[in-house]
């Protein structure tokens, strides 16, 4: 069975330091995978590599049966990989509505967007995405007036509207209240019903709530993979990561 995303022998070196070393990693279709690992394990780097922000030193990345190693980010996105940044990346001066409108799945070329008008269906899809994350009330407000949690949700709404096959979420609950985290976890679960999701998350409550399969990275290598229970009972994992924080 071919995986949706296949990372083979990925090595990344930045000014002499090896960030990722000969990493093999794959995700099946419609899977919700959680990526764990201590600081500096290479989680965000892996996401940067998959989305084409940097070019790998060695190895290959293929998505839906096509080799996407070294593709530019916009081409990789159009292939169907959406990315949520660790710190919300929004279009600050645009309204919440326009943020989602720009993200909406559809034409991306200069001369096709020049003459494109917003159809009723597109408009509905934008409202749907905004209502999904509960930001419809603020549709007219510029993004820079939102609170931190709302910013995270807006970026989620943007990605939902862009309808990727694979969604990479880099710590989407950073800086949220407990209530906000719970809500975000619910949103992610709902998103994952119809999509493949790779989630990087530190908060073990959330991981416990939604994780089915977990991959643990450590110093740029895959340390363990399996269900949460398997991983948590893995002695190597306990040593480097969970051992410091005893599960209740």
């Amino acid at each position: 069975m071919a995986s949706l995303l296949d990372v083979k022998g990925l090595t990344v070196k930045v000014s002499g330091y090896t960030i990722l070393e000969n990493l093999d990693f794959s995700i099946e279709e419609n899977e919700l995978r959680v990526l764990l690992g201590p600081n500096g394990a290479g989680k965000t780097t892996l996401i940067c590599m998959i989305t084409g922000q940097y070019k790998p030193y060695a190895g290959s990345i293929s998505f839906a049966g096509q080799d996407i190693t070294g593709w530019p980010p916009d081409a990789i996105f159009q292939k169907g990989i959406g990315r949520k940044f660790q710190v919300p990346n929004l279009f600050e001066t645009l309204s919440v509505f326009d943020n989602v409108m720009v993200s909406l799945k559809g034409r991306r070329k200069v001369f096709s967007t020049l003459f494109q008008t917003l159809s009723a269906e597109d408009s509905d899809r934008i409202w749907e995405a905004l209502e999904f994350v509960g930001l419809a009330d603020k549709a007219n407000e510029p993004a820079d007036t939102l609170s931190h949690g709302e910013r995270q949700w807006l970026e989620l709404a943007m990605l939902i509207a862009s309808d990727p096959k694979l969604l990479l979420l880099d710590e989407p609950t950073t800086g949220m209240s407990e209530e906000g985290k719970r809500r975000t976890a619910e949103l992610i679960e709902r998103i994952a019903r119809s999509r493949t999701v790779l989630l990087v998350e530190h908060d073990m409550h959330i991981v416990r709530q939604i994780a089915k399969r977990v991959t643990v990275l450590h110093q740029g290598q895959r340390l363990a993979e399996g269900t949460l229970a398997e991983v948590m009972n893995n002695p190597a994992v306990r040593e480097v990561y969970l051992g410091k924080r005893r599960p209740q």
Partner: protein
Amino acid sequence: MASASGSVLAKTIANRSKRTIYRTPLIPRPVLVGGLFVIALIGAYPYYGTNAYVLSLLGKFLCYAIFALSIDLIWGFTGILSLGQAVYFGLGAYFIALSLKLNYALTHPTRYGGKIPDFMEWNGLTSVPHFMQPLMNLKTAVVCALIVPTLLALLFGVITFKRHIYGVYCAVITLAESLILQEFIIEYQAYTGGFNGITDYSNYVSPRFLWFILAVAIIFFLGARLLTHSKAGTVLKSIRDNDLRAEFLGYNVANYRIFVFCVSSFMAAAAGAMYAAWVGLVSFLDTGPVFSIEAVIWTAVGGRGTIVGPFVGTFLVKGAEFFLSGVLAEWWQILVGGLFIFVVLAMPDGIVGAVARWGARRRLALDNIARKDELKKYYFQLRLRSERSAQPEKEAP
């Protein structure tokens, strides 16, 4: 029953507040009224005005305003600060000036009887060089004045934006581009008039030409408005706000930058072409960084990212210069620099931006008040109902 009708009310309130999107109209009413007034004021000047100098200033200011508009498109909307936009203005101007000068020389021979521009004769040329012959035809010159700068902008865009060069680096490179062209013009004086520029070819100041410039300004204004109101315009703004996010949403950021840079350069070239014919004098200063920076200041004062702003800013700053530079002389430049610093610190959106922001805030506030009012009414009705239904119960025992 009460709760059922209450929820209907709540729903209508929710729907109304939820599913409306405020968009600035293509031409907001104050702009339409003010714009028509100004157009009438400028367009009718030949009928009520007698001062030939003011007439010449009006055409000049309009060309400057179009130039500032071209800077607003790339800087205000896409976040590309070009300190060399005058390159495209100047190229457009030089093509027209050369053509006019070549034709002028045919009917006005030099002191030595040559039917070539005086600067060519001073530099030892005896006939118009072959590669310049096509420019004898004014129509060819107009086409060149519009197309060549746009193609140069395309080349420049491909070289820089495709390599992810923007921001400060782009500003520095455009600055260098501008200086290179200046050096080139001064060096090859046999073909360009060198340090003196191209002069004495008569100008074309006339009411008709003023109306033509005015019409072009209006067309460019509307075109820029349409562009920035399109989906592509929203994408440009999103690139200005966060190019990384735009790229990771599938937009080829470089292509958008190249596109808007070409549109902007086309406008600048058109402004330069009209400027050369109107003023009757083109020099290397018209391609220099100082001129670009001046236009950046006009745009900043008027309001970057507003389309209306460049027109307001240009007429205000250049108008003030007209009245004050006689009195203040050398202090004028310092004053303009001070004005720029003041605007950047106190009104980062410029005059028009500040007004628009105030309008938007007022609208949001009014909307919130209206929403609160409706909610208040709703709760008031709920309370009335509950009191009404509560009262008989009290009386019953």
